[in-house]
């Protein structure tokens, strides 16, 4: 093989420093150690010719870079970016979750999540269905999953980025809501998740704390039973643990979803 290697004459043994061309390639490939990277980065800033070599390699390897599978970031990342930039953590104009394609894509994964809920909690579907694969729902790529029959309609509480935060299954007879979270990192500020029930045009009413990593059932107080109906919205905010249930939300909304069917 080496006899036909057009670069056999190029001393690439590692003993001599490589050419700029190779050095730039090594930087982009990612094989340099920390000092090697700092050196290359200093040259990129100082030497346009070297920077051009790096850019060329970036473009050569871009194909692989863009083949990497997408993973929806947690809801807290965007507000932190805004904070780092000195902006208010919550943006102004919003298109609203209803116009959001990721939301609807997430919704296509809901039956899967509902199936998981049935498995986790032991709710029996009307007819035995095979356990769905334990997939992480990634709404950025539409999941190509055959949707199993859901035991009960569910409400998806979507995060800001369109990913599914929680899936709620409402039992109107028992006046309960089963909340199944898609686990996400805990709030670094130590706040907890509080669930709110919002009738159209009305103020949010707290249903208490909801877990961000474990499925559990939340009892709906008798006074709110009638509000737990189609057309109402379930929303989750970050709140201080003390004083739950609060009279009104104070923290940012991390996920929400409208109840379309019960």
């Amino acid at each position, binding site marked *: 093989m080496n006899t036909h290697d057009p670069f056999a004459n190029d001393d690439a043994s590692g003993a001599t420093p490589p050419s700029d061309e190779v050095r730039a390639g090594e930087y982009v490939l*990612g094989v340099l150690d920390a000092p090697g990277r700092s050196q290359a980065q200093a040259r990129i800033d100082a030497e346009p010719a070297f920077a051009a070599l790096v850019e060329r390699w970036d473009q050569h390897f871009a194909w692989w870079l863009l083949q990497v599978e997408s993973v929806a970031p947690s809801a807290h990342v965007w507000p932190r970016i805004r904070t780092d930039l000195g902006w208010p953590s919550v943006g102004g104009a919003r298109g609203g979750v209803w116009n959001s394609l990721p939301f609807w894509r997430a919704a296509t994964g809901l039956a899967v999540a509902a199936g998981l809920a049935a498995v986790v909690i032991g709710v029996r579907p009307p007819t035995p269905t095979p356990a769905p694969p334990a997939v992480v729902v990634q709404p950025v790529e539409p999941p190509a999953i055959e949707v199993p029959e859901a035991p009960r309609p569910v409400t998806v509480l979507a995060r800001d980025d369109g990913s599914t935060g929680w899936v709620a299954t409402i039992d109107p007879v028992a006046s309960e809501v089963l909340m199944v979270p898609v686990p996400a990192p805990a709030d670094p500020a130590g706040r907890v998740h509080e669930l709110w029930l919002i009738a159209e045009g009305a103020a949010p009413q707290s249903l208490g704390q909801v877990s961000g990593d474990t499925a559990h059932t939340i009892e709906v107080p008798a006074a709110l039973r009638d509000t737990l109906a189609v057309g109402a919205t379930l929303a989750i905010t970050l709140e201080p643990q003390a004083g739950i249930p609060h009279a009104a939300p104070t923290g940012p909304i991390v996920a929400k979803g409208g109840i379309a069917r019960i």
Partner: protein
Amino acid sequence: MTDMSALQSDAASDVDALLTRVARGDQSAFESLYRSTSGKLLGICLRVLSDRAEAEDVLQDVYVTVWNKAGQFDAGRARASTWLGTIARNRSIDRLRALPAPASRAPIEIAENARDPAPSPSSHAEAAIERGRLDDCLEQLEPRRQTLIRTAFFDGATYEELAVRSGSPLGSIKSWIRRGLMQLKACLEQ
């Protein structure tokens, strides 16, 4: 900002347009850019860092950089997706180098006559994903150079790590990769 679905289905050229607006200080374009590209960029960070908290921390940093440096993006020279992806990847590798030595990762099989290069996300997804020129050119390299270059790229592994994981001398690893890179470049720039 009202039609999120249009943004999500944007083609790469729309990402170029968004980034160009971001360069002019358009905050709503920045939010749209985040929505349409953050999943891919987190995927890139996670490929190198594995740890989600670290990857999201880097991602946060990446977007702050994107806002501050969008003016340096030149739509005539690169696609926005490449520009963004490269920042995410470089920041991730820098973070990886700054972390305590990672738990040793899987050994690399580089038998000279190995038929299949080590599994990697790109080969794993090959059935579903269009092959690129890069893949075709890589395939012309001898198997162990293919394996090393793929592993280096997808794991962000240093020469030293590759030497340990493959059980080969550092000098040989450097030599194989450097020659592989030059062959790859010759093929890609034909």
